[in-house]
Structure formats: structure tokens, C-alpha cells
């Protein structure tokens, strides 16, 4: 059938949409809003439909195979032969479905959320462009093609975070995201160079086939590669130490936060590790680092989330924390568990963000109507919104239960799979027990802060203000509709656990051949499940009992935090530390040394001006030779004669 041949069309459709909307944004008349919506959403829906058709055909006609479609020879340089090629196997198919599916829902949502924004066409253009790059990332058949997508999503993230660029804080946030990501990209690049050096190729098929022979397990080369790749992941997927851009990225529109910084772009790192499972299986140290950093980040971010007041910041730190879980999963060799959590997280985190978007939309509308300048995103200004936004509240509760890991919601299955995999490895290396413990603690915090969020936002007395209350209303159906779909997926997505293992088995087979999975005894597994559920419920209950929304006051009148709370609220002062230790020295160095000394004094002064001055000096000397005095000329004659005779005498 023809569907597989049209794989290139899946990324091409959003690209076309981006180009069309981009050109329309240059004309910027409100009348074209409908056209922008149709194009922007239409291409995504078509891409999703096509993706479904392709995956169906893949499972029917080529089950378990890896298909590579080469389109043109991109970099043919000696030994390095890189084609622009797309690869379709179980893993990339899964990612493709998630990306196109969730993107379509968020595009529909955006049509409502961004309806009154003057940059409507630009928004959809950039969002479509993002989806194109993300699809290139997940469908790429080689590291360079994937890197194109990697960089491209970074670019679109920058564009969309700083979408309202007229305010400096938004532009700064975009810059921060881009610059921090560059550090990670450096790691990716170095890893690519090392991979090419050792295996002679950059295509996934070749690299993973040759990996077992090109590397000795556990030696420096493969460890270096895995660690450098992971550096890229810490940047793109916001882990320690490069996570600092993600909370700032909340300056962008909320659907952007949902799509890019929850469901798709930040999961690129997890996808990378899963894709390179063979490499990580060959390097126990690399896998350990991935899992360790992941789980520590999970706990770290969860604790910060406990004390944030901005609803989007809570969700941002929650994302960082959940990404840590995913890395724990793929780092422990449980690629299925990690990808499963990626999938379920896409559902419930997108739902949470979009729901918060509806809340913010309502709050903005209320404040706009009363010309108030309060912070529409601060939970201390909310409260009791369940009455005004019932659908949003109910759906967000579904997502909260999912993220906390309460059965039978999807998050329970995925999170439990990860924790079980970590515990299983503890039998060979005890440090994994520690990881399991940290993961459990993070789960407790997750349940706590999510319940806190729901409590302060939707329950208790309303703190928005007398006059604003009348203007609070539910979001239009164009926004709540996608929420519904995501809610269903968050609730029922756990069913995937039955199929995902066998679906991904062809991809994970090679890695598991090199580093076999550990099996848990049945009863151990049930015990762990029980513990996890207890922890989740305990977290929810603790939040419900300990936190009293009635004691909150609106943000403007709230007292400042003190003590440990202040440290958590200030996110452990990490940004300030980075600023003092890294940023300021670099800025000083750039200004004083690179600019003043090297650029101005050396290059300008000596190089450019110096050469000019040298020319003038030489010319001046030359001009002094012609002073019109005959005696001087005669002397030069004689000098010349002496020199010529000197050559002759020799």
C-alpha cells in the first residue's frame, strides 16, 4: 500500500502549514484568522491521520521490522556518508503518534486560547514549524538528521517562549532556554564525533549493529559517548544541571508550555536514550549516571514544586520531576517502562497544562473586565474555581490522580513499572535500591504538590475578588474539548501496558541482549505496587489534611516565605548560584578579555590599525629617501655599487 511510501509527508505537512501561516503572518489582518486556523490545525490533523494509517500498515505488513526511507544523499564526504533518511520502527512510530496526536489536540485548544492575540498567524506558523522539527527528530534515521530536528525544536522553543517579545522578561526567558540548550547540544555533537570515530558511521542502523564489536563494554570510549549524549539530554529534557530554563519557559503561552515543555520537546532526551539503548547497555556507568541524575532530579524538582505559587511553575517543576522518572526508567534498561511513562505523561501533563490554561484564561478575562493588574497565574489569587470551571476541575483531577500514581489511572502503571525496574536491578547493584527509595520519596512529594495545586486552585474560598468573581467562567468548548480527550487517555491509557512491551520488543531486543533485564519475583512486585499506591494515597491525604486553603490571602497581601519554605520557593537559589559562579565570570571574561583586549587591542589595534600604521611607516621611510639632495643620492649610488660588487666578489 502507498501509506508507507508517504512517510515523508508526515513531517512535510506541518512544514507546509508553517510556510503558509508564516507568509500569512506577514499580512496580519484579522480577517484571515479562520484561514490560519484551518491550515494550522488541518495539516496537523491530516498528519495524524496519515501517521495512524502508516502505523497500521507497519504492524500489518512489516511487523517488528525497521524500515528506512532514503530521500537524498545529504553529506557525502569520504568515509562519512549521511543521507537524509527517515526511519520507521516501533519506537519512532510510537513517538510519531504521540507527537501528531497530542499536537493536534493542542492546536485545536490554541485556536481558542490565542483567539484574541494579534500574533495569531505567527503563533500557528511557529507551532507548525515546531511539529515539523519534532517529527524530523523522532523519525530521523541517523544522528545528524536527528540533530537537525534537535536544533530546530530548540529554535522553535526560543521563538515560542519569547512569543510576546515586547516584554523583556519573555525575551530573556527565550534566550535562556536557547543558550542553556546549546551547552547540551555541545555534548550531543561531541558524542556524534566520538561515535563516528569509533564506528565509522552515523546512521542508527550501522552504529548499533557495529556497536557490540566496536566497543568493549564499560571502557572509556563508550562511557564517554553515553555521558556526552546524556549531557545533551540534560539540556533538552531539563535535568540537573541544565534544567534551569524550563521554569522560565513558562513565560510563553500556555499551549506552548503544554506541547513543547511537557509532551514533546522535553521528551526528546528520553527518546534519544531509548533509541541508543544499545550504547547504554554497553556502558554500565553511563546507564547508572542517567538513572541517578534522573531520580535525583525527580526528587529535587518535586521538593521545589512544594512551595511554588505560580500554577505554571508548579507544573514546570512537575515536568522536570517526571522527566527524571523517565530517565530512571531508560537508565535502568527498562526502555519500555520509560517510554510508557513518556506516553502517559504526555497525556496527563498536557491535560494539566491545558487545564491551567483554561484557569488562567478565565482569570485573565476576569481581571481584564475589572481592569485589575493582579497576577492571573498566582494560586493565592484563585480558590474555589470548581464552581466556575467544573469541567476543567474534574478533568484536572483525573490528571492529578494519574500523575500521583493512583490506580487504575495511566500514571500508576507507568510509574510503577519504572520503580519496579529500578528495584529489580538492586539485586545486582545495591545503589539501585537507593534510587528506588528516592523515586518513592519523589512520588510522595508529587502527590502532595499536585493535591496542593488542586486544593488551592479549585477548592476552598475564592480569593479572586468580589467584582472579578462574576466574570469567571468555563472555557469555550474549543478549549475544553481537547481536555476531554486527554482526560480519557489519562484515565484509560494504562491499558497500553498490555501491548507496549511486545510492541517495542523488536527495538529493545538488541539492548537487552547486551544487558539483560532483571526479573522480579511475583510477590515482590505486588509488594512494591502496594507500597507505591500507599505512598500516593498518603501524599494526597497529607496534602488534604495539612493544607488549609482558607488561611491563604491574595498574592499581593501574602507574607514572604521564611526558612526552609523560602529556600524551596527560591528554588534552592540555583539560578542565583549559576548567575554568580558561571554567568558573571563569563560575561566579565567576554567583556574584559575577549572584547577589550583581544578584539579591540589585539585585532583592531595590532591587526588592522597596526598594519595600516606599518604601511604608513614604511611609506614614510620611503619618502625620506627622496629628499632632493644630490649628495644623498650619490651616496645611495655608492651603496648600491658596493652591494653589487659584494655579490660579484663572492
Amino acid at each position, binding site marked *: 500500500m502507498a501509506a508507507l511510501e508517504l512517510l515523508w509527508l508526515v513531517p512535510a505537512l506541518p512544514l507546509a502549514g508553517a510556510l503558509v501561516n508564516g507568509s500569512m503572518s506577514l499580512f496580519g489582518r484579522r480577517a484571515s484568522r479562520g484561514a490560519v486556523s484551518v491550515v494550522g490545525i488541518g495539516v496537523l490533523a491530516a498528519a495524524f491521520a496519515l501517521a495512524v494509517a502508516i502505523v497500521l500498515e507497519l504492524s500489518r505488513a512489516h511487523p517488528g521490522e525497521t524500515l528506512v526511507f532514503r530521500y537524498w544523499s545529504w553529506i557525502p564526504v569520504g568515509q562519512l556518508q549521511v543521507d537524509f533518511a527517515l526511519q520507521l520502527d516501533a519506537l519512532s512510530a510510537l513517538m510519531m503518534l504521540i507527537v501528531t496526536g497530542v499536537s493536534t489536540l493542542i492546536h485545536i485548544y490554541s485556536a481558542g486560547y490565542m483567539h484574541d492575540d494579534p500574533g495569531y498567524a505567527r503563533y500557528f506558523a511557529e507551532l507548525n514549524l515546531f511539529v515539523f522539527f519534532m517529527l524530523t527528530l523522532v523519525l530521523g534515521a541517523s544522528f545528524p538528521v536527528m540533530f537537525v530536528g534537535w536544533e530546530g525544536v530548540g529554535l522553535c522553543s526560543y521563538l515560542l517562549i519569547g512569543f510576546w517579545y515586547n516584554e523583556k522578561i519573555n525575551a530573556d526567558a527565550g534566550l535562556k532556554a536557547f543558550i542553556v540548550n546549546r551547552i547540551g547540544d555541545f555534548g550531543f555533537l561531541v558524542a556524534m564525533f566520538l561515535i563516528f570515530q569509533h564506528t565509522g558511521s552515523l546512521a542508527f542502523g550501522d552504529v548499533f549493529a557495529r556497536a557490540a564489536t566496536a566497543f568493549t563494554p564499560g571502557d572509556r570510549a563508550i562511557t564517554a559517548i553515553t555521558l556526552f549524549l546524556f549531557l545533551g539530554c540534560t539540556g533538552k529534557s531539563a535535568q540537573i544541571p541544565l534544567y534551569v530554563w524550563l521554569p522560565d519557559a513558562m513565560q510563553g503561552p500556555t499551549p506552548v508550555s503544554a506541547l513543547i515543555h511537557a509532551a514533546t520537546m522535553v521528551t526528546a532526551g528520553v527518546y534519544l536514550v531509548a533509541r541508543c539503548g544499545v550504547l547504554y547497555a554497553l556502558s554500565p556507568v553511563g546507564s547508572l549516571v542517567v538513572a541517578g541524575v534522573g531520580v535525583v532530579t525527580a526528587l529535587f524538582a518535586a521538593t521545589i514544586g512544594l512551595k511554588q505559587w505560580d500554577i505554571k511553575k508548579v507544573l514546570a517543576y512537575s515536568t522536570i520531576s517526571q522527566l527524571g522518572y523517565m530517565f530512571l526508567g531508560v537508565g535502568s534498561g527498562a526502555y519500555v517502562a520509560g517510554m510508557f511513562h513518556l506516553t502517559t505523561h504526555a497525556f496527563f501533563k498536557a491535560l494539566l497544562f491545558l487545564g491551567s490554561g483554561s484557569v488562567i484564561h478565565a482569570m485573565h478575562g476576569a481581571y481584564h473586565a475589572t481592569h485589575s493588574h493582579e497576577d492571573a497565574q498566582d494560586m493565592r489569587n484563585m480558590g474555589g474555581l470548581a464552581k466556575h470551571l467544573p469541567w476543567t476541575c474534574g478533568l484536572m483531577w483525573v490528571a492529578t490522580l494519574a500523575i500521583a500514581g493512583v490506580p487504575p489511572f495511566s500514571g500508576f502503571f507507568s510509574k510503577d513499572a519504572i520503580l519496579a525496574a529500578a528495584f529489580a536491578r538492586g539485586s545486582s547493584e545495591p545503589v539501585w535500591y537507593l534510587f528506588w527509595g528516592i523515586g518513592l520519596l519523589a512520588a510522595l512529594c508529587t502527590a502532595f504538590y499536585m493535591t496542593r495545586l488542586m486544593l488551592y486552585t479549585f477548592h476552598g474560598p475564592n480569593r479572586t475578588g468580589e467584582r472579578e468573581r462574576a466574570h469567571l467562567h468555563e472555557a469555550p468548548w474549543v478549549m475544553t474539548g481537547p481536555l476531554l480527550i486527554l482526560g480519557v487517555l489519562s484515565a484509560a491509557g494504562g491499558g497500553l501496558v498490555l501491548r507496549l512491551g511486545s510492541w517495542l520488543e523488536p527495538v529493545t531486543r538488541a539492548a537487552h541482549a547486551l544487558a539483560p533485564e532483571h526479573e522480579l519475583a511475583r510477590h515482590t512486585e505486588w509488594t512494591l505496587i502496594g507500597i507505591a499506591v500507599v505512598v500516593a494515597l498518603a501524599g494526597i491525604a497529607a496534602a488534604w489534611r495539612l493544607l488549609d486553603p482558607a488561611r491563604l490571602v491574595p498574592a499581593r497581601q501574602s507574607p514572604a516565605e521564611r526558612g526552609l519554605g523560602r529556600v524551596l520557593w527560591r528554588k534552592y537559589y540555583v539560578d542565583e548560584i549559576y548567575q554568580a559562579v558561571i554567568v558573571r565570570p563569563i560575561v566579565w571574561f567576554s567583556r574584559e578579555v575577549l572584547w577589550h583586549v583581544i578584539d579591540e587591542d589585539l585585532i583592531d589595534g595590532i591587526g588592522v590599525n597596526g598594519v595600516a600604521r606599518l604601511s604608513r611607516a614604511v611609506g614614510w621611510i620611503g619618502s625620506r629617501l627622496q629628499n632632493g639632495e644630490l*649628495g644623498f643620492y650619490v651616496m645611495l649610488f655608492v651603496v648600491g655599487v*658596493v652591494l653589487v*660588487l*659584494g655579490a*660579484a*666578489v663572492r
Partner: protein
Amino acid sequence: MPATLVVFWVFAGAAIASALLCITRRNTVASALWLVVTLFDIAALFVMLDAQFIAVLQILVYAGAIMVLFLFVIMLLNLGPGTASDVKGPVGFAIATVLAAALGIQLLALLRAGPPAAAGDLARAGQSEGMIAAVARPLFTVYLVPFEITGLLLLAAIVGAVVLAKRQL
């Protein structure tokens, strides 16, 4: 040391001494006169070198005509006994000495490398028919063209000198 060599060095020494005096005297006329002395000494050397005809020509033409011309011009210009600025200062003097010495050393090195092997002996040729005939015969046969051209050169020089020295053309 044979007598000829002694005589030779007497005249050579005199030539060198008077050349030295020529270039160092501040008075222009003195310089000219010392040059005349040098020319006479060189003429003597010519005689010793079997170039009697040339020696006489040296005295008649060089010392007798050319130097007289110099003296006439010095007289016409009425320059006076010579000022301090006629000779360069100590810096110029030093540079000149160095350069001249360098040149001298190189020339000596070149000339001492030795002339090519003897092809003939002029003295014997001069014995048979006299030096004047020995010089004149090739001059009017083999070297006739340069001889005639030299005549034209002298004509051009005369015309040029007259034109240049006129007050009004």
C-alpha cells in the same frame, strides 16, 4: 727592488698623496691644482707602462685643456676661498669613509684576482715601429668607427656647452 719599481712607487705615491690632498682641500682652486699634480703623476706612470703617447695626451688634453677649463669656470663663478659647508660634517665624513673603504677593499679583491693570461707583449710591438704608430694603426683601421663617433660626440659637446652657457638662447 729594481730601479723601475722604486721610481714607479715614487710617482704612484705622489699621485695618491696629491689625490688625497685634492679631495680634502677646502679651497676650490687648491683642489684643482692638486688634481693637476695628480694628473702629471699619472702621466709619469703611463710612461713607465709603455704608453708614451697616452702620457703626452694626458698632459696636453687632460691637464692642459680640461683642468684649464675647470679653472676658468672657477674663476668665472668667483666663489671665494671656500666655506665650511663645502665639506660634509663629521657624520657624512664617517659614512663616506666607510663606504669608500668598503668599495676599495672590494676593488682590491677583484683586481688582485689577477688579470687573464698574457696574450701579447706590447713593448716588443712598440720597439719595431714606435708607440705612436702602434696606437695609430689600429685606431684608423679596426677602431675607425668609434674614432669617428667620438668626433661627433665632441661636436655635440661643443654645441651643447655653447647653448647651455648662453644667457639668452
